[in-house]
């Protein structure tokens, strides 16, 4: 298990070539994927030719931080000509005709793509088990879920079948699987990374981000993919040139907010213990813990699901069997064509969320659901603003539990939704949050701690996570 930083050193010193490195990852990925199902598509051919190009670039002395580094890409991020399924029957054979901006930016660095990772269908879920291609498994215990929706990406990093990965996070989809798989995942500030080419779930919440073996690696990837993009109006110029610039900086005297609502009922005792231990570590290193309150948290899950599904019901309306993707056969009318294509092409969870979102926006219900949820969102923003006026970062559990068995929860949507309570507010507010491993439960399953900061202070959450990681002894996955 090596970090990008370590691999960079090896590649630059010619201890290993990118082709050799890529082959090692590909061989291991192909060997383990049968059991893990972390990848939907492994693209050996493309990966090796990208690695060759990277080696040339390295030989010419033009290596950038990610040149020749083998990465895995979540299967909802478009790579031109590479099958991109969103883990859905709807897009089973879909080949995008353009690159996502994040991919364009990684291409500029000469990164290598090993393949496309498994996920919840259209990123809707917290277990990755809603995938049309079968759910991926947790490398710490293959009877358990890797979390979701970026479960394949997190599992691939944890199983060392890629150096790092891109995921996407709408309500915790990078952080929760990172927590379940014992790796580091960063959801950047909304607008830091262009969403162009990220197949939309909920536009106002979606954000692409890295999953890696360290917070610093996350920063290295974010350096590559961040930036204002003319194809995405919601992308911003953050004014940050190096997201790892605060790494190693002292945290002495920094204030860490501990919102009490995140440590209440419903959070496993073992999770609480580990997160408190992490807090204690920071305290011992000179930071000050401050108890704060986010009273609106009780509305987090409902407001998040109402907004996310409302947007999703509209974003997913384009899948109709006309322009691309699954098309029902022998339909006699346009109406029948689209109704059947959509019913047959989407899985159950996706359909539930489309129905919920449609309900929240429909005439007579808009004010009671959608508008109320928008108001709650604005309230969250106010409450977080108040916290970050007096505190540097905020510390919370990433998930209420460790990874559960594949047989649990999955069929109970309400239980699944409630489990998102720790992660959704970060998306609702738009702030950066990193999850990093902070312990293991009695079964050896990883537990994650989340560190959030104010908008565009992504470098600060990386600094805190890095500070914690440097003294934390990780246990490798068993696979």
């Amino acid at each position, binding site marked *: 298990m090596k970090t990008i930083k370590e691999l960079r050193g090896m590649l630059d010193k010619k201890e290993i070539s990118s082709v050799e490195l890529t082959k090692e990852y590909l061989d291991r990925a192909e060997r383990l994927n049968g059991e893990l199902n972390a990848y939907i598509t492994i693209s050996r051919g493309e990966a090796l030719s990208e690695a060759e190009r990277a080696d040339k670039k390295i030989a010419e002395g033009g290596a950038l931080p990610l040149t020749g580094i083998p990465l895995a890409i979540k299967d909802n991020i478009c790579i031109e000509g590479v099958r991109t399924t969103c883990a859905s029957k709807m897009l089973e054979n879909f080949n995008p005709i353009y690159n996502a901006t994040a991919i364009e930016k990684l291409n500029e660095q000469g990164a290598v793509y090993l393949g496309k990772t498994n996920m919840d269908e259209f990123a809707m879920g917290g277990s990755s088990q809603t995938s049309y291609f079968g759910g991926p498994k947790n490398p710490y215990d293959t009877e358990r879920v890797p979390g979701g929706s970026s479960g394949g990406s997190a599992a691939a990093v944890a199983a060392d079948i890629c150096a790092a990965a891109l995921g996407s996070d709408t309500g915790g989809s990078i952080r929760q699987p990172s927590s379940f798989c014992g790796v580091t995942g960063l959801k950047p500030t909304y607008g830091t990374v262009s969403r162009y080419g990220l197949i939309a779930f909920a536009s106002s919440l979606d954000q692409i981000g890295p999953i890696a073996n360290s917070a610093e690696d996350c920063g290295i990837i974010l350096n590559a993919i961040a930036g204002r993009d003319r194809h995405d109006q919601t992308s911003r110029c953050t004014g940050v040139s190096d997201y790892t610039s605060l790494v190693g900086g002292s945290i002495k005297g920094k204030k860490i907010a501990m919102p009490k609502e995140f440590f209440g009922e419903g959070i496993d005792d073992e999770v609480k213990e580990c997160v408190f231990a992490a807090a204690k570590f920071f305290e011992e290193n000179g930071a000050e813990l401050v108890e704060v309150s986010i009273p609106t948290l009780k509305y987090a899950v409902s407001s998040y699901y109402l907004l996310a599904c409302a947007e999703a019901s509209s974003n997913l309306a384009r899948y109709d069997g006309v322009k691309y993707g699954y098309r029902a056969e022998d339909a006699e009318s346009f109406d029948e064509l689209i109704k059947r294509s959509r019913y047959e092409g989407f899985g159950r969870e996706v359909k539930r969320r489309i129905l919920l979102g449609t309900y929240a*926006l429909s005439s007579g219900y808009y004010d009671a659901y959608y508008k109320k949820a928008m108001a709650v969102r604005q309230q969250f923003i106010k409450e977080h603003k108040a916290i970050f006026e007096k505190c540097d970062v905020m510390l919370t559990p990433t998930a209420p539990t460790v990874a559960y068995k594949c047989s649990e929860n999955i069929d109970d949507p309400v239980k699944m939704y409630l489990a998102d309570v720790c992660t959704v507010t970060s998306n609702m507010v738009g702030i950066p949050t990193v999850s990093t491993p902070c312990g293991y439960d009695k079964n050896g399953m990883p537990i994650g701690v989340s560190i959030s900061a104010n908008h565009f202070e992504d470098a600060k959450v990386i600094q805190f996570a890095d500070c914690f990681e440097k003294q934390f002894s990780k246990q490798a996955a068993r696979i």
Partner: protein
Amino acid sequence: MSEIFDTVIGLEVHAELLTDSKVFCTCSAKFGGDPNTHICPACTGQPGALPVINHRAVEFAVKAGLAFDCEINRYSRFDRKNYFYPDLPKAYQISQLDLPLCINGKVELSTGTVVRLNRIHLEEDAGKLTHDDYNGESLADYNRCSVPLIEIVTEPDIKSAEEAAEFVAKLGQYLKYLGVCDAKMQEGSIRADVNISLKRKGDEKLGERAEIKNLNSMKAITRAIKFEEERQAEIILSGGTVEQETRRFDDNQGRTKPMRNKENANDYRYFPEPDILAVTFTDEDIEKIRATIPALPKERKEKYINEYKISEKDAEVLTSEKYISDFFEDTVSIYPQYKNVANLFLTEIMRRVKETESEEIPFSPEDFAEVVKMADKNTVNRNDAKDIIRTMFEEGGKPMEIAKAKNYLVVEDNAAIADFVETMLDEKADLLEQYFAGKQNIFGFFMGQATKGLQGKATPRSIKEYLETAIEKRKK
């Protein structure tokens, strides 16, 4: 329309904006092109593609709003209107609901009616469907998808088909003046939805209204409204109630019919478009846009009547279109003989531009000013001046060159006059005697002979002068 009912009409007029690129992507917004050759990931709703607002589309919408006395929302938001139709690849139209760019404008009609504008908002057009009955298929071309449209929504202030037609015509005229729309109804760049209901005279309560969708000619607007007035009157008079419904106008049959199928329960589930940020304006932004608005027909007409002393009817024609009015104004700025310029313009230029529909005058205001001046100064005679204009239209060329080539220049060749007149008087000494004896009309004969013989060499005035003097001399 009738003794019993008042007609109450509200319009929603869609006008396509003359931007180079589409409103939410960078594809060409030009009309035409082979099917699906002005498309990209964004306007065809590819997974992951995003809309990005075009600055000029917003500017044009605001410009239209300012021209119609609208207030501009300093914070204007876009919303999604969700419905499924094969000409709408994203299955939603990006439009504006609660915070449109422009609100509360007005348009005055010649009848004195002031039509209040509820709003002007910016939205994207849909694609084009062609229907293949034989195969039972519809084919979708997305070239028009995401071409910018403004929707101009009136209050129900319009009282007749004629007023509705005038309103749409005036809207088109103004939008063309502003340079934001070409107003070509035949290409669909302006189309109207009509909301119409009847109200018993004296009643406060409006009847149920019908909405007639997508009328794309003046004639269709007028005919559809007249048909609808009669249809609704018949229903009410026979004791029925008009159904609130969406109808379409069948041009061949000249009647409106209920739309069979929009395949949607009418619930568009509008919500704020999360892919696009709201647009904010400063006062300076607005003033900058206002400064790009040219003098509009009303103002120009008043100037022509009051300063140029041109009749109202002629002023109306001269301001009908901006390029005409501009050409006229450029001409009079060079040669400020307003009425003379106007007269030749109206008879010779207007007729031809109407015939060709080209909206292009193939010569410059300088050239035209020269022709008018030549006619005024008698450098050529008036009929020849008209022929010079015809030639400039049909073959091109500069006025003086044409006049020379066609031998239209009036020359005062005094030697030729003397020679011709003296010879004539010598030869016709007998007639001259008769003239001296009192036959006055013989002067006319001499004049006629000389004018004919001296064509192109002298003006009738000079001939007459010389002839009079010559005869006087011979009297002794």
